[in-house]
């Protein structure tokens, strides 16, 4: 048995199809036994039925797929009442298929999708009642250059009792669109699902198509993709650090992290033509390898970068004004993070040690592991610090690959590997779940084929879908003035949530 892979496949007509209640019961038992729900979704099956799928991950990393078939008018006892970690999945399942989780404490549409014609007006905000309670609404358009979303604060004086997030403004109908377009030209659309995570999305998409078509990509391709993903992580963590520093008026931080990010994304552009890695990864491989010249160029860039990064980190971390503004603000406890099922960096900052690069390493991370880093305090400070450490670790990892001469990164003389191989037809009647750990957390894509090998369902899940609730908890008993830094410290995706 090799390492756990970040891709799992199943022949759909060999899967046990459970009844809805049985399915819900099984999921409940597995969660109770310590497994995590990685994703849970449904799709229409004919006019009247729904196929529901849950993917669970055991602590040792292995994935299990549970399936059910039900009438679309069916209902079930909501798991959320016992396991809050599935609350968004149940809301989404209800919005997308009509299956009703009875007893769900807050059953509202996630994104007000076009075909169900739900309106925001029909779903009022949570209301806190009492003397001198007031509400503050912000958005969808915000004061800075940022995606739209609505934040509703329920306050007593300065104290925030509750924050409700209302999204959907960014809904572009991505999942439906991915089924309409030709299979092999989906990459650029996938790169725009959450455009700041283009590489994580492209990789998870490519890996799914490769698995479904039985295409083996070379280790050279895997390494180049790995480098691309870590460059994206570094760039986006720097973007968050820039924003955090600016939000607390620590101007040197804003200026320096900003220009350090420019250095990284310009290096990405020198490798693939785009500052966001667009057009780099394609099904079957990568369009650009890293030749000796570019290898050396990137090594120089990263060496200069590391020196300056250490300097600004030191300044920021030892500054009393930064410490007093961020420490103890926006705390999500370890218990809360585990209960609500936080993933990615937001979970690791609260001491929950999960990272798909460690639990589902596949060939690449098995040969070249990355350290799994966590912080304990779960506050804005922890999320900031963890970003700094993850940047360091990623740069260290990329430098190691670049510095090892017998690891080819191009299809030159030292390597027999092809960078790009053709994709054949897809397996029929197959479900494929593909996962990559982007800078926010696991990007999950589930593709299912019919008897003729055409896609029947394309499900996309951004880590933000579950992590936004972490921001809500972080704001409890804080003040509205803490909101910008709390929001920035999570740095979640609006369009990733809205699709």
């Amino acid at each position, binding site marked *: 048995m090799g390492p756990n892979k970040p891709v799992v496949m199943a022949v759909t007509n060999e899967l046990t199809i459970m009844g809805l209640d049985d399915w819900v019961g099984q999921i409940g038992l597995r969660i109770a036994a310590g497994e995590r729900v990685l994703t849970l979704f449904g799709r229409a099956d004919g006019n009247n039925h729904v196929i529901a799928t849950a993917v669970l991950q055991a602590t040792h990393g292995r994935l299990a797929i549970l399936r059910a078939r039900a009438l679309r008018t069916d209902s079930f006892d909501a798991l959320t009442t016992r396991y809050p970690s599935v609350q968004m999945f149940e809301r989404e399942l209800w919005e997308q298929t009509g299956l009703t989780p009875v007893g769900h404490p807050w059953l509202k549409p996630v994104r007000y*999708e*076009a*075909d169900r014609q739900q309106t925001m007006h029909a779903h009022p905000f949570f209301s806190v009642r009492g003397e001198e309670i007031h509400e503050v609404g912000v958005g969808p*358009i915000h*004061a*800075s*250059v*940022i995606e*739209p979303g609505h934040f509703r604060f329920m306050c007593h004086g300065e104290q925030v009792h509750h924050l409700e997030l209302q999204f*959907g*403004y*960014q*809904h*572009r*109908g*991505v999942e*439906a*669109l991915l089924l309409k*377009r030709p299979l092999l*030209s*989906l*990459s*650029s*659309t996938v790169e*725009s699902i*959450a*455009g*700041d995570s*283009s590489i994580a999305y492209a990789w998870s998409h490519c890996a799914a198509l490769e698995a479904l078509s039985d295409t083996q990509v070379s280790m050279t391709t895997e390494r180049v993709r790995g480098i691309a993903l870590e460059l994206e992580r570094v760039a986006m963590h720097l*973007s968050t650090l*820039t924003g955090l520093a600016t939000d607390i008026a620590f101007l*040197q931080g804003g*200026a*320096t992290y*900003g*220009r350090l990010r*420019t250095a990284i994304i*310009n290096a990405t*552009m*020198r*490798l*693939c*033509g*785009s*500052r*966001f890695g*667009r*057009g780099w990864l*394609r099904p079957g491989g990568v*369009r650009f390898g890293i030749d000796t010249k570019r290898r050396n160029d990137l090594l120089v860039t990263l060496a200069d970068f590391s*020196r*300056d990064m250490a*300097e*600004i980190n*030191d*300044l920021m971390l*030892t500054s009393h004004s930064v410490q007093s503004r961020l420490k103890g603000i926006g705390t999500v406890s370890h218990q809360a993070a585990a209960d609500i099922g936080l993933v990615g960096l937001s979970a690791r900052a609260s001491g929950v040690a999960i990272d798909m690069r460690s639990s589902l390493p596949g060939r690449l991370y098995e040969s070249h592991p990355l350290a799994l880093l966590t912080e304990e305090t779960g506050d804005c400070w922890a999320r900031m610090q963890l970003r700094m450490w993850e940047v360091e670790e990623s740069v260290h990892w990329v430098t190691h690959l670049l510095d090892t001469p017998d690891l080819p990164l191009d299809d030159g003389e030292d390597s027999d590997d092809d960078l790009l191989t053709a994709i054949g037809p897809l397996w029929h009647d197959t479900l494929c779940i593909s996962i990559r750990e982007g800078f926010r957390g696991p990007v999950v894509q589930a593709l299912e084929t019919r008897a003729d090998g055409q896609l029947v369902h394309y499900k996309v899940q951004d880590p933000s879908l579950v992590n936004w609730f972490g921001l809500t908890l972080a704001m409890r008993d804080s003040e509205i003035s803490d909101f910008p830094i709390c929001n920035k410290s999570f740095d979640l995706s*609006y*369009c990733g949530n*809205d699709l």
Partner: protein
Amino acid sequence: MFKSIKVRISQGSQFIPDPRRANPTGFRGKPVIGAEACESGCQACVTACPTQAISQDTQAREPIQIDLGRCVLCGDCEPICPSNKLSFSSDFRIACTDRVGLVLNRSRTAPDPVRVSAALRQRFGRSLKLRSVSAGGCNACELEVNALSNVNFDIGRYGIDLVASPRHADGLVLTGPITRNMADALQSCWDAMPAPKLVIAVGACAISGSPFEGSSAVERGFLDRFKPTLYVPGCPPHPLTFVCALLDLLGIQS
């Protein structure tokens, strides 16, 4: 204090002295259509283009044309052409004041240059305030619009700023294909801006909606009512494309 000085020294000067003369090494920018004849009946690039930016008129002598308003500069067409007819240069000055001017073919090898507007120059030449609205933007355009204000591109030096309130804004920077769920908010923002005002369409989504074309969740009626003054292509556009377009539009020296 000493740490702060150290950071200041290593920071040095990071601004790009003249954006018009910048050289973004490696950037996949303006498409170049080569002179080679197309293989007869070949539709390879047309088929490969994910956003239908390339069209082909098989009757014409020069059959290929590329609409930069639809193109996402992904480069998927380049390796697929059997006659190596398509390539990309690092030319980033691809913005245009006219939608039709973005369609490249043999007679129009580069987008029509941004026309300086005397009226806009007089009103906004020394101070232009922009309000950004993302209406389905994927955060790539938004990050690049944000980058305009960083220490590298530093548009503040030309009197151009991104402002928080539409009441303070002269121009609306539109990113994203305009989702149905954002259509009302976008209109409210525009209504809140005092005249004279202009719309700047940034990115393939805003210009043509091509990346999300065919989705029932997109509602682009706003652009039927208000014609953009400036089109900034790309996916996302390079900040240099945007900066230079603004400088050209307002006739600002760099």
